[in-house]
């Protein structure tokens, strides 16, 4: 991003790399009507999954990311299930789904354990006791093998949408 102010360098993350298996998890998965506990492996069993870690609902990157993913509508072109994950509660997810008019489902992980298992924890400066995932995108195959991975090394940073689209087109 070409910003006039300095971005914060987050350094390396110990996240799953291309070819490795992404960690399994179970969390409440929110749609426009209800939420229920769902395992990531239940989703990947149905086909490739684009797992999008994003900053808490209401932040400007959350709005940008979901507007972009809604407009690109990759699920209509490619065989992929798009799901998000943030530390926001299921109630906030329902509001985001309505406000952004997205046909995607969102995992709720207030205690940030999934980010821990993915090695992408981001402790938020100025919000004592609050951590969330770094912005990150993983394209996973049916057995949760990582096909494409992007993890923010700066804060703020947004995904490279064209690179994701290339990865979707390749697989």
């Amino acid at each position, binding site marked *: 991003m070409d910003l006039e102010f300095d971005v914060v360098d987050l350094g390396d993350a110990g996240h799953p790399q291309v070819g490795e298996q992404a960690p399994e998890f179970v969390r409440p998965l929110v*749609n426009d*009507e*209800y939420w229920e*506990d769902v395992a990531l492996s239940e989703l990947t069993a149905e086909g490739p999954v684009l797992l999008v870690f994003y900053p808490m609902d209401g932040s400007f990157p959350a709005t940008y990311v979901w507007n972009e993913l809604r407009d690109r509508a990759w699920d209509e072109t490619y065989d992929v299930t798009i799901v998000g994950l943030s530390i926001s509660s299921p109630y906030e997810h329902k509001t985001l789904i309505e406000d952004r008019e997205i046909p995607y489902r969102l995992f709720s992980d207030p205690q940030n354990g999934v980010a821990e298992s993915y090695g992408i924890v981001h402790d938020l400066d100025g919000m004592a006791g609050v951590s969330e995932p770094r912005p990150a995108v993983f394209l996973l195959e049916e057995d949760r093998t990582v096909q494409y991975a992007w993890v923010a090394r700066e804060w703020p940073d947004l995904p490279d949408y064209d690179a994701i689209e290339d990865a979707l087109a390749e697989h």
Partner: protein
Amino acid sequence: MSETATTGGPSTADDPSITLYRLQACPFCERVVRKLHEYDLPFRSRFVEPMHSERDVVKRISGQRAVPAIIDANTGVTMSESANIVEYLDRTYGEAA
């Protein structure tokens, strides 16, 4: 969006036959949950909207927006009202069953 499972089929740990539509902190829902635990019945919890007028998913499965509502694919039963559900669970899975 995932489809609501309303048809029968074998129950597994990951895909229990019973689905409970519930509202967080709703005492009538908790009453049903206690009964399900009492009979050791695996079930899937689906948490819905507090606003009654927005609970269309519950209306689609049960004909009304009230929770708790339960779908039991073992028996093909869909039911609302906690007293009715508890009585149904006693009758179907209790000692008398």
